[in-house]
């Protein structure tokens, strides 16, 4: 009963907070991350994401991501990613979007509390550059802050806030999206962990902004 109460609290909180005529939708986000550790510093990751929208009744996007991560020291690491997005359009076709992005991550822990900061610099293009429908590249900086609490070896709760800042879209000034998400992570052991989250994606500074309420699950494999 308590879990249902928390869930409905977030729905009502979200709806009341963004009741300003903005269009709203509910969706789901599932992902499978497979990470191979080369050594203590370097690991390679492959990630598949599946998103649904329109009250989770329709496929929205498929994301395919490859990355390499290097830990620099106890606190800092960085990543390089290449991602292909298959974005479903209203005419039931899929539009390809390609992303390249670099992340610089900082992480600090004190007792059981943790603070994570991620600065992500990305470029995204819509379609192939030889197509008429090609758009971009669009450059973004995304800043994400995560506060976490490690309950025990297996369980961790966290809350994240991410801001999207377009760098070459003059029609969108300042921040054009922000996301907030509480998350519970369950770590089975060093090879498997599972994430459960509820994310609010709020678009701003555009003609037809949406607010998405996303229920998410993720599975992480590490070898």
């Amino acid at each position, binding site marked *: 009963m308590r879990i249902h109460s928390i869930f409905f609290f977030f729905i009502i909180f979200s709806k009341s907070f963004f009741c300003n005529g903005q269009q709203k939708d509910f969706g789901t986000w599932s992902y499978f991350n497979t990470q191979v550790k*080369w*050594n*203590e510093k370097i690991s390679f990751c492959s990630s598949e994401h599946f998103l649904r929208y329109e009250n989770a009744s329709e496929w929205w996007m498929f994301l395919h991501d490859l990355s390499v991560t290097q*830990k620099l020291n*106890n606190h800092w690491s960085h990543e390089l990613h290449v991602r292909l997005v298959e974005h479903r359009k209203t005419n039931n076709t899929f539009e390809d979007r390609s992303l390249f992005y670099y992340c610089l991550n900082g992480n600090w822990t004190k007792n059981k509390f943790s603070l994570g900061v991620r600065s992500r610099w990305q470029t995204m293009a819509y379609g192939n550059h030889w197509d008429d429908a090609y758009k971009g590249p669009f450059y973004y900086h995304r800043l994400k802050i995560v506060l976490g609490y490690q309950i025990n*070896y297996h369980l961790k709760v966290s809350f994240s806030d991410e801001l999207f800042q377009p760098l070459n879209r003059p029609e969108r000034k300042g921040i054009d999206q922000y996301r907030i998400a509480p998350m519970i992570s369950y770590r089975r052991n060093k090879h498997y962990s599972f994430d459960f989250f509820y994310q609010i994606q709020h678009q701003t500074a555009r003609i037809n902004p949406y607010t998405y309420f996303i229920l998410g699950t993720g599975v992480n494999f590490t070898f």
Partner: protein
Amino acid sequence: MRHGYLRTETKVYDFKDPENSRVIHEKMDRKGRMLERIEFDTMGRQQEKWTYSYTKNSKTENQFDDQNNLITQKNWKYGFKNKVTQLEEIQFKKNRTELTLIAYNKWGEKVSEKIYRNQTLIKIRTFDYDDEGLLIGQTTTDAEGKVLYSKRINYLP
């Protein structure tokens, strides 16, 4: 190094063995690392002294006797995430050097220690972990692989 104090003086009173009573002077740097430790007897005579020096990836400890002769030197080398990868101990009076090489796996867990005495391998310690990263076993063998010592750990609810 709390409160900004860089030097301390500790007086130890051993009432059961009064000859063991002593005074210890310690000096630290601004990062709280020990620079010097000197032990005096109750008459104020220096008994032993240790000095420490540091670089980005290493630490050296020199131990002196009451005549200020260098008797032992220890050198630590640190690798990724400041974990010890090498410990060398030189005993000048005994003309003996002991070197320990420490290896870690990709999870950051210590998996082996190889111990050399005067450049000859004498012992190998290996460490085993479960999937949660808990130490579950330790085995010590001689240079030929003969098991000298074995330990298994079970974690009980």
